[in-house]
């Protein structure tokens, strides 16, 4: 019996291998596994749902094309996808004029009430507005660290910088976010104090 591969990301590599082998369930499974990552990152980087969809679709197309030649034990699939998505989002961000968030992203189910959903949406929009004020690198580091929940070494690999630089970017980014959101604390449903 083959030993279970315990490497981080091995299951993701297996999924790519299944896709390359023609497994008919693989396209759907890959989409469910990876597309939300690309979409969330692009949405927080661009604050525009339609553009985030385009970025997620393009990043996934690149992943589908890369799957047959994927080298096991090489780059982590999710790191690769984050990097591709970040590059695509950055390119768009530099090309476009400032477009406001005209279509709020769908929120995950589970919000207990309409009021809670509204608060959640208002917070997401406030987060996007505040993130948009940050320099690109700070924004990307914050999104990867605090929304995607990645560890600093992985962020460093994705951004091709050192871990100390990641720490510096996230610390400065958080300070700037706090300052940007200072006046909205009560409106966003946070207790005063």
């Amino acid at each position, binding site marked *: 019996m083959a030993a279970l591969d315990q490497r981080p990301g091995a299951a993701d590599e297996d999924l790519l291998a299944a896709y390359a082998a023609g497994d008919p369930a693989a*396209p759907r499974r890959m989409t469910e596994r990876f597309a939300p990552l690309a979409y969330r990152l692009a949405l927080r980087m661009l604050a525009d749902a339609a553009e985030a969809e385009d970025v997620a679709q393009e990043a996934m197309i690149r992943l589908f094309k890369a799957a047959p030649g994927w080298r096991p034990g090489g780059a982590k699939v999710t790191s690769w996808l984050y990097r591709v998505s970040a590059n695509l989002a950055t390119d768009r961000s530099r090309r476009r004029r400032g477009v406001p968030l005209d279509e709020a*992203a769908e929120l995950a189910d589970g919000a207990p009430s309409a009021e809670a959903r509204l608060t959640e949406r208002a917070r997401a929009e406030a987060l996007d507005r505040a993130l948009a004020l940050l320099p690109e690198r700070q924004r990307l580091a914050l999104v990867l660290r605090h929304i995607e929940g990645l560890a600093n070494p992985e962020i460093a690999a994705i951004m091709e910088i050192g871990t100390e630089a990641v720490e510096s970017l996230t610390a400065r980014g958080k300070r700037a976010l706090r300052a940007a959101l200072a006046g909205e604390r009560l409106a966003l449903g946070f207790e005063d104090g």
Partner: protein
Amino acid sequence: MDEMTDDRDLEELFGAGRAALPPDRLLQRITAEGRALQPRPGGPAPVAAPGRRRAFFEAFGGWRMVGGLTASVAAGFWLGLADPGGYVAALGAGETVELLPGADAGFAAIFGES
């Protein structure tokens, strides 16, 4: 105090950012793209784009054509240098060869030269 200094509040804000889900129509579109791009089991292997060298030879009709062309050029070069049949010597240096005998008279008749 009207300043968001509490990390907990910031964390809740990030939580709102994590809650975003891609719409179903996007997932369906991406899945369809994935199916269209997926290699078929037992199907033909994807054809790689030809390299620069291969593209060069294909522009001249492939390896066989280029081989034949090279042999012809080499033979002509050798004939020119070695002159094995003495063709160049037979012509004689400085002599004029009339490729179309009588052509001058024909031109004169046509253009009315005397």
